[in-house]
């Protein structure tokens, strides 16, 4: 595909037509922030750099910064996946806004007045390991034995520990899920390491955001020191778009 880069559009997200553009100082990934409108919808676009490909850390951060600024201004926004570049404004109008007007409008309605929080729950390693050693004599014995001087022995110990943690995780994840309040919708993401208990995105009404956060403080206190909870947001509803 050979196209003029100058005409191409990096798309940050979709907002209602007539929305106010955010004031963002530096947008690495694309400059000349503007709206391309059709069907009562608008795409927030910029011109991607002509001399390099996007994909650097600053590009990711810039993508998030533009969307965060929209959220901070109270503008409902459907974030595009990072790296979405269309041929030109006509393509934005035809292939994005017009072709998908129905679902875009429905998605926008669903996120209007709402923000996303993202929480990551992890085991406090030492606390959980002590717990395991107390409840699993076989693991405690193996650890104390000379067997762990060999690679095989260490692998066996590690495997037993990881399997034991795998068995604890569903209960602990559910306990945190049960503690969540003020959630309109929740999406659970895959966990990526044994000490990760739960990774979830929560859609919250803006009016409930403070209550949601306060509750999370309480939840974190309740599960201290076994679990460590990290809360990021409010952010654009990254996990609640394009899913029907």
């Amino acid at each position, binding site marked *: 595909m050979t196209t003029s880069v100058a005409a191409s559009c990096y798309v940050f997200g979709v907002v209602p037509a007539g929305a106010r553009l955010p004031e963002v100082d530096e947008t690495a990934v694309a400059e000349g922030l503007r709206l391309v409108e059709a069907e009562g919808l608008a795409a927030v676009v910029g011109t991607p750099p002509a001399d390099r*490909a996007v994909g*650097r850390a600053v590009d*990711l*951060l810039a993508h998030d910064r533009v969307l965060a600024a929209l959220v901070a201004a109270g503008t409902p926004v459907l974030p595009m996946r990072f790296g979405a570049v*269309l041929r030109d404004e006509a393509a934005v109008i035809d292939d994005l806004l017009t072709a998908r007007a129905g679902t875009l409008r429905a998605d926008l309605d669903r996120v209007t007045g709402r923000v996303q929080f993202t929480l990551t729950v992890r085991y406090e390693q030492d606390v959980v390991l002590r717990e395991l050693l107390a409840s699993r004599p076989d693991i405690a014995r193996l650890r104390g034995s000379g067997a762990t001087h060999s690679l095989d022995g*260490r692998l066996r110990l590690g495997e037993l*520990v990881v399997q034991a943690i795998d068995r604890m995780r569903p209960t602990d994840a559910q306990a945190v899920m049960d503690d969540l309040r003020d959630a309109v919708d929740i999406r659970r993401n895959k966990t990526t390491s*044994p000490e990760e208990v739960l990774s979830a995105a929560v859609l919250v009404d803006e009016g409930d955001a*403070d209550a949601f956060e306060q509750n999370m403080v309480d939840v*974190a206190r309740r599960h201290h020191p076994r679990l460590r909870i990290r809360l990021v947001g409010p952010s654009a509803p990254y996990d609640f778009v394009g899913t029907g």
Partner: protein
Amino acid sequence: MTSAVDKRDSGYLDRPRSSSLADVVELILDKGLVIDAYVRISLVGIELVTIDARIVIASVDTYLRFAEATNRLDLYEHGGKDLGEMTESLAKGGASGKTSGVIDGAKDKVGELLHGSDDDDDDDDDDESSSRRSRSGNGRSSGNGRPRSRAR
């Protein structure tokens, strides 16, 4: 990300004031509206990065890391140890320290990957092992405006 909340420093909830690169990676990669491949241009190896973010850490490394953590526990469980045990634990800790630096989290790797093609920004992650560096070399070559094939 600003929010008028004063109770974020409760000491219990980990509540970053601004999103780190790792937070942003976690938040935005693999998420958001997707444009059909036939209308989209220049995807720049993003898919490759995504895969690294979701890498399932090799179980052998994971087992060794947990074995090490479990073995290390007794260092502070009982106070007085004899010198032999002490040096033994320390030796093991030293050996696996190298490994755990590498596998400490897939998200770090993504940070490295992303930084492979870029230096002028604000990352705060300075504990880089040589093996992580060589990984980031893999992600750098992306170019050509073509999505990478999804290698497993």
